[in-house]
């Protein structure tokens, strides 16, 4: 082999690297920066972004610009708080530009400002004053902002504001930002009002053109005198794609078995085939083609349906069908992979190498890895250039296919195929009936047209109205059939319940006849005293009589965990009733509770929270239920500075300034640790149930598990299976860890049945052996609700729950028992009462006149103050159900144990 170091394959090219090719984009970027524009180069990977930036960086530096290059991944993304992220960014900029100032001190002095605020002050007070030249800040791999656990919208908005400032402050004209990355502008920032991308200059990187690439011939000059012709042939294969062009050139330069006497056309074709295309998957080093494949078959980020759609779309492009460019998610993904480019408004495959590597066989092979029932027929149909009628579906198989596509997002090829099949069937039907040929064509065309419409409609209906039977429109969010619900009384909250008074009240409420509505709701409350929804609607109707209300949203999983939702709403209703009664003044604004469904699904929670955050009337949020949903919702709330007080989400991984929990997994974990330690239970096996494919609902489980691991340090308690989460039966525990004294089964509420099954097995084994070798089974708070407790009792198993001591005879609990006509009040009700009261107390502690017109920020500030001062709720505004010395996790927290034996439960005891 001959070694050639003229060409460089992969990685960025150093400044003035001999094989660096200057393209049109070079002068575009250079000019745009010289004009002072905000520039961005957002492109697919390995197109030469960083190399371009490096060249321009040095060029500008030589001209006297103060240049700074920030590679965003250097800052990190996991465990990065908003403040540390901005601080690090600031520190890096100051360090690179050699600004002589202790940034740590400076940052601390700005204590009260928001992080992004500090960053913009840094720009104004430090950056622009200590450097008097023009400043260019390059920010590379900007797509990493999507991995941050806070929204980067502020960051982009801030860049935009730097440009807006220029009108008023001329010094801002000296500051120029350039962003680089593999993303689309809209995926980086959602809010189009403050995006910098619509005021900036987009630099589009294209493949090398023939005249630009002539420079590459130099590297081949000592091998052949037809180097220029060779380069021209290379471009025919690579389309000027920088990575492939450099690679192919290097291969030619280093190959020892090329006969340069041959025609350049043949030379290049042979080596391209033998060294790149044939057996490509093993020759793709450094990786390029595999990266493209991985971006399309990306099972980690894309759904199977989406991938199938992508593949079919690509197949259409491959077949030379005319596809107009648009910004559909499939097209965006396909273009970002680099495989397909937009040429004069139409999709085209970037180059011949891609076309041969990712050919029809590849598409069919990839499709066959998914289970598509009619794959053979549809591919044969597509292969016949969409002509072969014998491959269309029969009536029966068409129906089956349509049924199995229920709730799926179909590709356009699927739809075309169904339509063609249906059309063919209709024609056959006509033929069978012997309709005269003359009128046939027109009829068939109409039938074909109609069937297309009908099919679109039918397929839409199939997934769009998951709950059509109930006459309520549903919608599909990330594959979940979901019923959107936001109601203060104008819509029923629960689908299945029917109460004529409630229905009537809803009708009146819709017509804004609040007095009539209230009367009907009141009747509904009387007929079912346990129903918190009628009570809330009643309160709302009354509140609306007094003009404007104070709106708080209670987000609960109505259709999914109805019992939990109702228990939570009971506490909310109690607090609302109490507050509205106490505001006697006629002009006082009263509390309105908006009931919102989030289905207990993170995807939905994200959507719902965006809507709530965008509704300026909503002052605060109570909810969500599972920690996973709350986590998905928090970024939206944080950005809108709206407080979230969750009665039930307790994962310690929930972190946001706006978030206030009732109780925290750290407290539980510490209680378990204390208890085990005090009982000399040293050898514990933790069964955490979460599957290796983490679901979002495992947020709580993981947090509790981690907190427990931390809490047992130094307490003489060991987790035996620290590295082994595979065990899931008592038998496996006993055989692997014979010294086990206790099992802690962490259930997030979804794993309650599994826990009971575990308890059964445990009882069975315990009954066979002497007391000293029995294993005690502990489980978590999520199993302490009424339904689960009664299930445990039914199954007559033994287990223990450790938790904070509960006072089941507090004044609130006693009143609630009577009000709701129940023997027992669930912990969730008590917690949600407290949560609502905390928001109410925040409003109450505002001074007049803000108290009458509270703002989100005002409520947030009060709650933060209360947290700082560890203010407890006033006695008559607290459920008194549990008392915790918040913030202290020391060993003396009173711990109670709920012991259930043979279905007999003994209450929480200290």
């Amino acid at each position: 082999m001959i070694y050639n170091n003229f060409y460089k394959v992969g990685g960025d090219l150093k400044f003035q690297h001999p094989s660096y090719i200057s393209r049109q984009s070079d002068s575009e970027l250079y000019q745009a920066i010289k004009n002072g524009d905000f520039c961005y180069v957002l492109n697919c990977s390995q197109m030469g972004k960083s190399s371009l930036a490096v060249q321009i960086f040095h060029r500008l530096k030589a001209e006297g610009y103060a240049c700074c290059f920030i590679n965003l991944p250097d800052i990190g993304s996991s465990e990065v708080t908003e403040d540390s992220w901005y601080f690090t960014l600031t520190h890096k900029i100051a360090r690179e530009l050699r600004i002589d100032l202790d940034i740590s001190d400076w940052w601390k002095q700005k204590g009260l400002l928001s992080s992004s605020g500090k960053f913009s002050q840094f720009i104004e007070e430090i950056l622009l004053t200590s450097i008097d030249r023009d400043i260019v800040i390059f920010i590379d791999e900007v797509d990493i902002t999507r991995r941050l656990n806070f929204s980067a919208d502020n960051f982009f908005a801030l860049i935009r504001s730097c440009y807006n400032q220029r009108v008023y402050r001329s010094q801002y004209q000296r500051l120029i930002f350039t962003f680089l990355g593999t993303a689309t502008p809209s995926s980086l920032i959602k809010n189009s009002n403050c995006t910098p991308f619509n005021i900036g200059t987009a630099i589009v990187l294209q493949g090398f053109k023939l005249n630009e690439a002539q420079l590459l011939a130099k590297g081949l000059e000592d091998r052949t005198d037809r180097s220029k012709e060779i380069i021209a042939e290379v471009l025919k294969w690579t389309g000027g794609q920088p990575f492939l062009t450099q690679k192919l050139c290097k291969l030619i330069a280093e190959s020892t078995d090329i006969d340069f006497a041959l025609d350049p056309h043949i030379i290049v074709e042979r080596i391209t085939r033998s060294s790149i295309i044939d057996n490509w998957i093993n020759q793709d080093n450094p990786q390029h083609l595999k990266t493209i494949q991985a971006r399309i078959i990306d099972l980690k980020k894309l759904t199977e349906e989406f991938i199938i759609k992508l593949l079919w779309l690509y197949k259409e492009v491959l077949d030379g069908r005319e596809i107009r460019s648009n910004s559909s998610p499939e097209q965006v993904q396909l273009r970002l992979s680099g495989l397909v480019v937009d040429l004069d408004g139409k999709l085209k495959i970037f180059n011949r190498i891609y076309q041969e590597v990712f050919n029809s066989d590849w598409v069919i092979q990839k499709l066959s890895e998914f289970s598509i029932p009619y794959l053979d027929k549809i591919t044969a149909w597509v292969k016949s250039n969409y002509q072969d009628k014998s491959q269309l579906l029969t009536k029966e198989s068409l129906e089956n296919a349509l049924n199995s596509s229920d709730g799926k997002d179909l590709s356009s090829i699927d739809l075309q195929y169904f339509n063609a099949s249906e059309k063919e069937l209709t024609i056959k039907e006509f033929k069978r009936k012997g309709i005269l040929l003359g009128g046939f064509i027109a009829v068939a065309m109409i039938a074909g047209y109609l069937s297309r419409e009908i099919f679109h409609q039918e397929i839409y209906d199939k997934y769009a109205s998951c709950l059509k039977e109930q006459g309520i429109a549903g919608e599909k969010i990330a594959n979940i059939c979901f019923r959107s619900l936001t109601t203060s009384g104008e819509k029923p909250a629960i689908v299945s319940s029917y109460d004529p008074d409630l229905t009537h009240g809803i009708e009146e409420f819709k017509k804004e006849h609040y007095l009539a509505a209230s009367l009907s709701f009141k009747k509904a409350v009387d007929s079912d005293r346990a129903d918190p929804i009628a009570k809330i609607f009643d309160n709302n109707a009354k509140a609306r009589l007094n003009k404007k209300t104070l709106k708080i949203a209670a987000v609960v999983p109505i259709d999914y965990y109805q019992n939990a939702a109702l228990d939570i709403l009971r506490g909310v209703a109690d607090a609302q009733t109490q507050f509205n009664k106490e505001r006697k003044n006629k002009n006082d604004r009263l509390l309105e509770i908006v009931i919102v469904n989030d289905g207990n699904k993170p995807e939905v929670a994200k959507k719902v929270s965006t809507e709530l955050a965008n509704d300026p009337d909503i002052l605060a949020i109570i909810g969500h239920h599972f920690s996973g949903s709350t986590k998905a919702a928090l970024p939206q709330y944080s950005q809108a500075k709206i407080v979230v007080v969750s009665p039930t989400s307790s994962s310690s991984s929930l972190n946001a300034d706006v978030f206030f929990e009732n109780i925290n997994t750290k407290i539980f974990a510490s209680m378990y640790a204390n208890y085990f330690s005090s009982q000399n239970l040293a050898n514990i096996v933790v069964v955490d149930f979460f599957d290796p494919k983490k679901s979002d609902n495992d947020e709580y489980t993981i947090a509790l598990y981690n907190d427990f691991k931390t809490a047992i340090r130094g307490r003489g308690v060991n987790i035996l299976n620290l590295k082994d989460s595979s065990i899931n039966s008592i038998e496996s525990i006993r055989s692997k860890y014979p010294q086990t004294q206790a099992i802690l089964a962490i259930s997030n509420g979804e794993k309650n049945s599994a826990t009971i099954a575990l308890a059964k097995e445990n009882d069975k084994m315990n009954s066979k052996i002497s007391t000293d070798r029995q294993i005690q089974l502990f489980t978590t708070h999520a199993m302490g609700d009424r339904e689960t407790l009664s299930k445990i009792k039914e199954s007559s198993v033994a287990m223990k729950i450790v938790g904070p001591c509960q006072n089941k005879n507090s004044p609130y609990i006693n009143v609630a028992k009577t009000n709701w006509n129940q023997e027992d009040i669930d912990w969730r009700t008590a917690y949600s009462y407290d949560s609502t009261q905390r928001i109410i107390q925040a409003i109450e502690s505002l001074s007049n006149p803000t108290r009458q017109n509270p703002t989100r920020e005002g409520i947030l500030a009060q709650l933060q103050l209360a947290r700082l001062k560890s203010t407890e709720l006033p006695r008559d505004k607290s459920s008194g159900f549990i008392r915790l010395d918040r913030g202290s996790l020391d060993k003396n927290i009173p711990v109670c144990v709920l012991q259930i034996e043979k279905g007999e439960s003994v209450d929480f005891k200290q």
Partner: protein
Amino acid sequence: VNIAIRSNGNYNRNDVFRSIVAMSIKASEYGKQKIKAARKNIGWTIDSDLPLLEASRILEPNLSWVEGMDWYAIAKATWRRFVEAKPVREENFKVFCEILDLEWRDISQVGEAFDIRREPQESRCERTILEPASFLRIKGPHRMGKTRMLDRVLKQVKSNLEEHSHNQTRIITVNFLNNFDLTVYDSLDNFLKSLCQTIAYELTNNYQNSTKNLTDTFQDSWHKFDATPTHKTSVYFENWLLDLPLILVLENIDRVFEAPFSLDFCDLLRGWHTKAQRGNLWQNLSLVIVHSTDVYATMDIASSPLANVGEVAVLEEFGSQEIERLVKQYDLDWDGESTAKIMALVGGNPDLVDLTLQTMANESITLDLILSVATTESGIYRGRLLKLWETISKKPHLKLALKYIIIPSTSRRVDPLILYQLESLGLVKIEGDRAIIRNELYRQYFTYLLAIEDN
């Protein structure tokens, strides 16, 4: 090449085994060093009772053992012989290894197979490391001989460096399996803090001529600085560690790939390498990482963040030449066909090849006999096979994936994450986007066990 091998294998295997009591093992020279290090790490002296206590607990688990007893299930003299690399009974050898957390085959003279020089990877590794600002990744499944090759490479690199008297290059090795407490992997901040501390400690201890006492500088630079963990690390490197050339070797980095922050850590390494290549201070840093799986399998991204970074040396199974070199060391009667025969069954798995040759040497059994009963209960590979079976049986998804791979009629798409777990166990080999069972022995044995399970 042959001469080098001869000097490496400095004893004759058959002689060793004839001279000692049957079924006795002693530690190799390399193993002796490892034992010493492990012993010091725990704090056991050669006269301590504690190893005897721990060993007794394993040997006789039903009796209750406490410190300061008059006698233990194992004699102190045995311990002493073990430490001094004298032959002891196999059972005792394994127990001592267990309490010291060492892999017995690695440190005994039985692990001879791993001393075979691996070409062309080995010279390539040496060359790459000696280049400034380099990034080398050594990749290979478990028990393929990575650690031993790395040791040899580093030894060679050191001696090359020492030829230049004023060379100030420092080499620091961090092993993520031994150096850190498990809890460190819960948080990026703790992890990077421990990493910096470990490097600082090693530098202070091993390179005395450095004027700074690095461990003292650490607290301030870390805790009084509120930047993100990765940035703190980079700044610490810039301020304190990169004044002279540094070769940083990170072993068993798979442990980090499993951590929640793996992506950040890979980004950090990638960023360092880019900076190193751009010049200035960072060109003093050369990185070597050793791992058994590809990175991205555990991460929520489609393509590896280290995919195109640096040079990769993939440590593969033995080829016929390596097997024949090993045969010479064992001094066995051998014909040309034998190599093909052994490879047809076990491929070039160093561990299985070595076991085969060792059995032939020790017990004078013919290769044909070993191979003819290989997959039966009396086969010599049974222990290895059962251990693998036990490992995959604990994880049903691994077992299912294995079934999809080796039983043609069940072929199904397998999650890449699972494929890489099987790859790291050395069970399968990934070619392109397909997985293939490593050898015929595995195929036959596991097909049989999986079929039994189905009935």
